[in-house]
């Protein structure tokens, strides 16, 4: 894994740290020796949570062969919510949230059912407005520019901010190959070396070795966990800067869940990840930072370790210790 990373980082454009609030350490592109140059809080988390340190070293999770990884390289971008409100008809489901998602980090959103987690996340790539009667107010800044600006093309936003849904939903009429290629074809990026791009995306999703001999079989014929990784590969193929995951493991068994979690840990070197989860252990395992929401409002956000061990708000503490929810 470490052998090909220097190649990857050569291709990466550097993000200017000036227009977001994160520290310079967090915004710099992942270095070849990412594991040894983690931010202090990251190291802290890793030391305290042994499950996190295992995943990147797991052999089947190694993403790709040298040379193939380069085509899919793109850096994550920071996302910033400013007074975001989301409505279904007249009912406010998200009631004014300010929140930063740091580039190339995993941010978990936790909170009880119906607290607006999914709605909030769906606002980030403007999928919320696809629901009849739904609308959003406020700002969502992707790398400093507001994606709710009237001059913004929704389609372009969604190419930059991909989404993985709760239930695996490969396109039923398409083969494994076509499912991944669909991302490119639908986004008019199907030209060029399609096969190479598909392979890269499948490797990126840790699925290549399992499906390389059945690329022409139906995508819906894979197991649930494979289908979900196929959906992740489909999102990766268009090289987004941010991936939103709306409870990606809630329909999967523990083994498949573990694979997705390992995958998330690898992917954050390339993309910013926002994951909604009902599973607090999952948030503790995968997230660098965790945000706790309650009835449409953000209660607290901070380093995962702090949220779970020493939260500032008593409601957060009650939720993470299982007093309600």
């Amino acid at each position: 894994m470490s052998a090909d990373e220097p190649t990857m980082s050569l291709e990466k454009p550097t993000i200017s740290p000036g227009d977001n609030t994160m520290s310079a350490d967090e915004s710099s592109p992942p270095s070849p020796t990412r594991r040894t140059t983690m931010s202090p809080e990251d190291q802290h988390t890793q030391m305290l949570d042994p499950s996190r340190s295992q995943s990147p070293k797991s052999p089947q999770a190694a993403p790709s062969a040298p040379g193939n990884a380069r085509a899919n390289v793109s850096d994550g971008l920071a996302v910033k919510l400013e007074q975001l409100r989301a409505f279904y008809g007249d009912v406010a489901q998200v009631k004014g949230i300010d929140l930063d998602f740091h580039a190339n980090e995993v941010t978990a959103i936790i909170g009880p059912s119906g607290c607006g987690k999914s709605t909030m996340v769906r606002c980030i790539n403007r999928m919320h407005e696809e629901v009849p009667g739904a609308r959003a107010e406020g700002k969502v800044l992707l790398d400093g520019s507001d994606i709710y600006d009237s001059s913004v093309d929704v389609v372009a936003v969604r190419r930059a901010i991909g989404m993985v849904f709760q239930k695996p939903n490969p396109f039923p009429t398409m083969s494994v190959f076509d499912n991944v290629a669909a991302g490119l074809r639908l986004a008019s990026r199907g030209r060029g070396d399609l096969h190479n791009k598909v392979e890269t995306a499948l490797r990126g999703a840790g699925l290549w070795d399992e499906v390389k001999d059945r690329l022409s079989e139906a995508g819906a014929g894979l197991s649930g966990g494979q289908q979900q990784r196929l959906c992740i590969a489909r999102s990766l193929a268009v090289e987004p800067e941010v991936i939103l995951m709306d409870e990606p493991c809630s329909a999967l068994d523990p083994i498949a869940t573990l694979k997705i979690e390992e995958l998330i840990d690898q992917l954050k070197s390339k993309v910013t990840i926002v994951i909604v989860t009902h599973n607090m252990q999952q948030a503790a395992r995968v997230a660098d930072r965790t945000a706790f929401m309650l009835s449409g409002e953000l209660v607290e956000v901070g380093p995962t370790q702090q949220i779970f061990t020493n939260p500032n708000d008593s409601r957060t503490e009650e939720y993470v210790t299982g007093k309600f929810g």
Partner: protein
Amino acid sequence: MSTPAPAFERFSLTPRRRRKDRIARGAVVASTAIALVPLVLIVYYLLSKGLGSWSIKFFTTDPTGNTFFAASSIGGIKSAILGTIEMVALASAIAVPLGLGVAVWLVEYGKSSRFAHTVRFFIDVLTGVPSIMFGLFIYIALIVGTGTSYAAYKGAFALSLLMLPVVTRAAEVVLLLVPGSLRESALALGAPRWKVIFRIVLPTALPGLLTGILLAIARAAGETAPLLFTAGATMKTGFNLNGFMNSLPMQIYTDVTSPTTAVVNRAWGAALTLVVMILLLNLFARLLARRSSLR
């Protein structure tokens, strides 16, 4: 609380329940049997009477009109077969894209807007309109209104009006069945809406759409009333869409009222031909749907 009955008694099948079950089962079996009677009879009569008049000549010659002479001189139904194919093809070429377009608009764009509800209402009304009304409308609009005579394309217009609501309604139902999650994931990949419709929604719904389209085609192919005073009746094979044109239902309609046995038998032969044609079309479309469902 009383003590529960011994297991044996608690779970034993009472004669009363057994009787009820027999009656209910008998009733549904009887309904099925009764419904099968006309179906079987139709197939039986079609085959026994229709097959007799089938021959190479039957399919390769036009009706002669010499109905009072020997059975061998009355001619076949070539013009009727070709006429039906031509007019139904033209009608489908008009109604299928139009109907699919309306259905896509209703499902993907109109949704539950007031205008969409109005459109749905009128489509439902159209579905219930007797087929002769479509013929009458075309007759008044395109024949009386323009002072011209019967023509094949006018018959096809009448058929397409008949097909339009059938195609639209069937397609709408099928498109609604396409899971919203597929649309969402395609949109989330950064696909423009038209691509989501053409690449994801329509292919996913294809088998159902084909069934709906076939239903409409089969219905149009079997209609006599819209053709009665739009396409006229003729004996000759024609390829001029602006001239009179024969069709299988018209052929059956005129033949079956003839006093000559051979001509009545030709009606049976024509009816069997029509059924077989629709059956073949159906099989063909199913094969197509199966092959396209996974490349």
